[in-house]
């Protein structure tokens, strides 16, 4: 399932969409380890409400690769 990265990642949040080149982001954001192999992330969707944020990373085929839950401190 691992593959070379297509080159760009679309970041989606309440402000809209922006595209970053894979070289602009950390390798651990650009790839998620699945079955011991790196799988490219092409879409990252963040939802922030109040003190809570969820960041979801998706692969080329639209599969959900990981979800990170964040909390804020007042």
């Amino acid at each position, binding site marked *: 399932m691992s593959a070379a990265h297509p080159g760009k990642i679309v*970041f989606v949040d309440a402000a809209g969409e922006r595209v970053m080149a894979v070289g602009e982001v950390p390798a651990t954001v650009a790839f998620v380890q*699945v079955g011991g192999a790196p799988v490219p992330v092409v879409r990252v969707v963040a*939802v922030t409400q109040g003190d809570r944020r969820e960041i979801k990373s998706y692969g080329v085929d*639209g599969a959900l690769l990981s979800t*990170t839950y964040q909390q*804020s401190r007042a």
Partner: protein
Amino acid sequence: MNSNAAIPVPARPAPTTASEALAAVSTMPVWPLRSPPQQSQLNTLATGSSPLAARATWALGLKLTSPEFVAAEPAEQARLLKAALSETPLLPGVVSTDTASQVKTAAAYTVSGPTLDAAHAFPGSIRDADKFVVTIGGREVPVFLPHDGQFTPPVQHTVEDVAKALASLPAPSLGQVKQVNIDPIANPEDAFWARTYGMANFSSYMTCGSEGRIDIYPANDPRDVKYLADTLVHETGHAWSNKAWGDDPQGPAWAPWREAVRQDGLLPSTYAGSSPAEDVAESTALYLAMKGTPLAEEYRKLYPKRFELLDRQFGGQS
């Protein structure tokens, strides 16, 4: 059960009860604008015993008997009513606020270990780990934590916390968890997320991978076992809906869920209102928490279309 514990009720005059308010509303022109299921939903809110119903006593009671509401045109009444059903104080911020009152008996569990796991791959840090095995109903979940017991920042869950949280999960949620890492350092990606979203005060609590690997990051403030379990149950909703319908909640595959949300009207939480993906995750958490409890049927009347779809996913009513 203290259903209002997390949502303070402001000091206001004693409200008309939701039942009295509903009786009045049922004679107003707005009433026929609601479908029979929506009318039934309001009746359930007014007469039920769920945490939602408890808050409806004053949230809807005051709103629906206010002079502004009574004098409004039917269309405006419908808008005001819809708004009242979509916001606090009626709704919790997240469903776990309400499901706390329906905590089921946790399953029995055992913890064995540790054994040494040399050069374990934690996020951003390879180091020796202690491996414990949590066993619940014959199911084994390995749990890793740094052998040196050092955490930066210093506050972290214990193996016992993880075992208790896993033992409290509904079966579909527990089934997703294949490995838990109690990580020694904060998420190395936090600095990137802070730059990307322009908010430095967020830090990662947990990452759930598609293959059931859970990473829990240390923090400066303690988090309880319930928060850990609630987060894992919420993730269950994302996992199944993504597999079933893909990554675009506005896409055609998600149409049945969006239609269920439209027909039910009532949101499960304000957080659910942030996107259909969060709605399905929050609804799943609510559904699994209430399944088999005395409030299950009451919640089914409040969210009939969503629960119908969730029945198909999780094997029907019980």
